[in-house]
């Protein structure tokens, strides 16, 4: 029974982490989309450094969160 209780506590922790991770990932998707739209609306390059660094867009500079 004790082991069961331990296991359900662990499960609660894991579920909590899963929720935190989901929240974080969905916030990242929404904020990245928002910033992208705002840059486009203002006529700004998606990568602020593309011009000054002359980087061809090879996806190299994508931030992996």
């Amino acid at each position, binding site marked *: 029974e004790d082991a069961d209780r331990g296991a359900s506590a662990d499960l609660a922790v894991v579920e909590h982490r899963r929720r935190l991770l989901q929240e974080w990932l969905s916030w990242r998707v929404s*904020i990245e989309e928002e910033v992208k739209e705002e840059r486009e609306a203002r006529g700004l390059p998606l990568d602020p450094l593309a011009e000054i660094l002359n980087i061809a867009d090879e996806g190299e500079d994508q931030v992996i969160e």
Partner: protein
Amino acid sequence: MRPILLQGHERALTQIRYNRDGDIIFSTAKDQHICAWFAHNGERLGTYHGHQGALWTVDVDPTSTIIASGAADNTVRLWDIKSGKCLKVWNFDTAVKRVEFNEDGSRLLAVTEKRMGFLGTIVVLAITLDAEAEQSDERVMTISCEESKATVAGWSYMSKYIIAGHEDGSVSQYDAKTGEALDNVQVHELDMLITDLQWSQDRTYFITACKDKTAKLINARNLEVLKTYVADTPLNSASITPKKDFVILGGGQAAMDVTTTAARQGKFEARFYHKIFEEEIGRVRGHFGPLNTVAANPNGKGYASGGEDGYVRVHQFDKAYFDFTYEVERQARQQQQTAI
């Protein structure tokens, strides 16, 4: 994880910054010169002499052409990284505690100290990213901090906002074009000084370190506190690691400020927390005094810390660091892969 020890400063470190590629480290200390180092072997690339007072801050532009510095001699200076030449001096009424370039290096902000007769300010300067160019004397904008002086400040994504951390534990959001104060939120305990503010790579969120023994992850768009990291010692610095979802905190109390004789007196360790789960996952010892500054390498492969003891310690992360993953993270990644 055997660190490289950089010995080039005789006084307490004040700030460390990596360049964008993560191959050069710039450090400032109270001993009046800036050092540049190769990140991979700790070899000294150069020193920059000219300031007449303790150096508080340094930043490097995104093209790694010039660095900016601020000091107790009431000046901001620009330097040519390659030649070591001082390119420009701006004079202010009080000490300069923080400088930061915006995302494309076209602007520099400087946080000036409050002193009798002078309010603390955030000044914006226009920069030409060319070591040969004539730099403008003009202050593009000056924000005065009437309520509580700013101790740290930086530029958000798109250089849309200037975000400041204050002496009273609050953070402010200003319109970076007009200087208009848009918002102020008491994110830390009242009257607990915010000691550091560092950005995520895309500058949509940032981390603050505070004397209230916590660090906070904050949304730059609306100043919402996303995460809180609770430590057991006053914090001087906090940095967000790329590649892995961690944050690094540095702090500790100077021996003279420690009233109790705790076993881990002062606690001079860099602390790693999981950025999303807010849990502490590890500590790295080494310094003989408080950690005044920590910086994660933008390439994700290491970090550096600077201490009250005058040393810079450069760490390369080992395999265990990259392997460390929570079960839920592993599952989420698998799901993503199957979805693709």
